[in-house]
């Protein structure tokens, strides 16, 4: 059984919540009591169909305005996979939530309203999918029932979207087009007989077959130390274990390692998971490691294999997505949280703003506003140990924290 995390993106009224509701309904993931609640509310509102968006829009304001404000997580499973859908809002002003939802997803669904075709929002959604290097993108053309299930409409949208695809810089991304009607259930879970010209899979059939390779794990092993475990009990008197999660690749007992930033060399002595010892720690496992030598290691340090060092530097350049209503300015000071490591950072230079609709870049920028994407160089008060985002998703990304409000104000992808 594998877990597939999917982000959804679409504009207001593209029917995103309806699509998710439809998936839940047709996979029989909605329990009787939830279904009854939807039926009851739909009837109260005078609809002559079931409003599946009621299953996902969890906040009062969302139900009142009929829109999705915040990222919601929805869970369902089939015989083959467990799914987590990050349902992200489509409004321009909620781009930050879209980036957030996509940051943990392996695949994404971009929704297009068949009546409207490719619009500016579609460009943005696709851009973000590219920026975050989402491997599988499913372009779902919804509301086909409202365009008489027309093949011409579908082909026109496909052609328009293909033009966008030529502009992306992550060319290995796999893109699939599926015509659906979320409201009527065509090609969502079950294949439709209304579009005989479409011979491909339904949306769920497609998701079921997606590659299970975990894209977060590509790269070389990096072990950021989260917490130092010192029991100070009689039985474990001299025990000094380094707790953390293994990213990128595996680590094994006997591996020659280097501890950063001190660059002290040692060997992995033991790998614990709870009270069991293992020969190898697999990717993404939360283990505790002990080393042969008694060296000083603390939270924020990183254990890597000898001869396989990341970049160690007091500055880096990254594409960032700004998420706060207060501007980011040249010379501004922030906290960079890179994994579990925190350092103080200063904006050295905003190189340019990148228009997230593929319309080019804007130079001579002095500040960034909420939802802006830009290339920025930061100077740090001490070195961090990073990889490029394209080579290592976890060790190549960071968040920005405001030193005054403590809010998370941006996300970055190191170049």
């Amino acid at each position, binding site marked *: *059984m*594998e*877990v597939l995390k999917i982000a959804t993106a679409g504009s207001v009224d593209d029917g995103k919540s309806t699509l998710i509701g439809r998936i839940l309904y047709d*996979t*029989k*993931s909605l*329990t*009787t009591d*939830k279904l009854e*609640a939807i039926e009851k509310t739909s009837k109260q509102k005078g609809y002559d169909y079931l409003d599946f968006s009621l*299953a*996902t829009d*969890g*906040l009062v*304001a969302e*139900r009142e305005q009929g829109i999705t*404000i*915040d*990222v*919601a*997580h*929805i*869970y*369902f*499973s*089939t*015989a083959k996979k*467990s799914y*987590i859908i990050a349902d992200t809002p489509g409004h321009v002003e909620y781009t*930050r*939530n879209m*980036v*957030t939802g996509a*940051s943990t997803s392996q695949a994404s669904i971009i929704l297009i309203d068949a009546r409207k075709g490719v619009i500016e929002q579609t460009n943005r959604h696709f851009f973000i999918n590219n920026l975050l290097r989402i491997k599988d993108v499913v372009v779902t053309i919804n509301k086909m029932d409202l365009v008489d299930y027309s093949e011409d409409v579908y082909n026109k949208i496909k052609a328009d979207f293909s033009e966008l695809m030529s502009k992306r810089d992550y060319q290995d991304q796999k893109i699939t087009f599926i015509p659906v009607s979320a409201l009527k259930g065509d090609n969502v879970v079950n294949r439709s007989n209304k579009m005989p010209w479409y011979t491909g899979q339904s949306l769920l059939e497609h998701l079921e077959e997606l590659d299970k390779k975990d894209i977060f794990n590509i790269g070389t092993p990096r072990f950021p130390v*989260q*917490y130092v*475990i*010192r*029991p*100070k009990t009689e039985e*474990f008197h001299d025990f000094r274990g380094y*707790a953390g*999660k293994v990213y990128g690749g595996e680590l094994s007992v006997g591996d020659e390692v280097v501890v950063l930033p001190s660059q002290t060399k040692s060997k992995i002595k033991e790998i614990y*998971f709870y*009270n069991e010892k293992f020969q190898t720690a697999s990717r993404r*496992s*939360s283990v*505790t490691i002990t080393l042969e030598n008694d060296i000083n290691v603390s939270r924020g340090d990183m254990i890597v294999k000898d001869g396989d060092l990341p970049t160690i530097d007091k500055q880096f350049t990254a594409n960032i997505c700004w998420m706060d209503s207060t501007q980011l300015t040249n010379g501004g000071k922030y*906290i960079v*949280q890179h994994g*579990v490591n925190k350092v103080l950072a200063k904006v050295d230079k905003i190189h340019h703003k990148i228009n997230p609709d593929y319309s080019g870049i804007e130079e001579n920028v002095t500040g960034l506003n909420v939802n802006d994407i830009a290339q920025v160089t930061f100077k740090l008060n001490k070195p961090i140990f990073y990889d490029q985002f394209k080579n290592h*998703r*976890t060790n190549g*990304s*960071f*968040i920005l*924290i405001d030193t005054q409000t*403590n809010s*998370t104000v941006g*996300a970055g992808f190191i170049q």
Partner: protein
Amino acid sequence: MSKMKKDTYHINSLENEAIYIMREVAAQFEKPVLLFSGGKDSITLVRLAVKAFYPAKVPFPLMHIDTGHNFPETIEFRDKLVEELGLELIVRHVQDSIDEGKVKEESGKYSSRNSLQTTTLLDAIEEFKFDACIGGARRDEEKARAKERIFSVRDDFGQWDEKNQRPELFDMLNGQIHHGQNVRVFPISNWTELDVWSYIEKENIEIPSIYFAHKRKVFLRDGLIWSHSEFVYQEDDEEVLERMVRFRTVGDMSCTAAVFSEATDIASVVREIRDSTISERGARIDDKRSDAAMEKRKQQGYF
């Protein structure tokens, strides 16, 4: 086809994520606490905390907000667990908040102490200056909880500002807060009810007996099965029956309804949940109050 038995890959990845979160709490906060209700989710949290810090002890205490209307089995279980694992337990009582006049006991047919817990909890957070409270809420439980972050910041009044939540990217958890604020932490956010049960089965975790089918005196109201107890208001014409039941969630007696069940061991409970067509909180009387019942309670500082 919706709910199938999962193999261990899935549950292991959830476990690794939860252990990572536990360690972030211990590293980022000065005074964390694990909110313990005696229910299966908080028992699972305890197990995860023990695993996260082995061979060291769990570096934070447990706290139980006691409504005084608990199932006696839960309290017995709680005390045994704490003793066996050598954990520190803090108990604060809703009865004390009532006696001090801070909250008023509800009366009537649907009266419950469930919502009164919030005041006792917020007072305890202030008393001990806790800056992080670990809870067992899961996003699949309820649609307002689906919007919850893993690190969820609460203001000085314990309130949840749902429209202004911090974005959470990758697995980076931002625990920076101002003095007086605290963070609610949900390590099993991404688990479903079935995941929790599968984990309990896999790890062979002991849970209170009321989760398994047993004979109990109950009565029926509004399509739900209520416990016959001194803590639960009962009308004269509501007939007491003896039935085989079990509980899917364990809260205050006055807000937790039972389900008919013959499942007397973990394997049959897992099977039952996999085939169930009613959601877990479908038997929570407190959620039935309105469509936005949970969101309202959360804004006020509920778990």
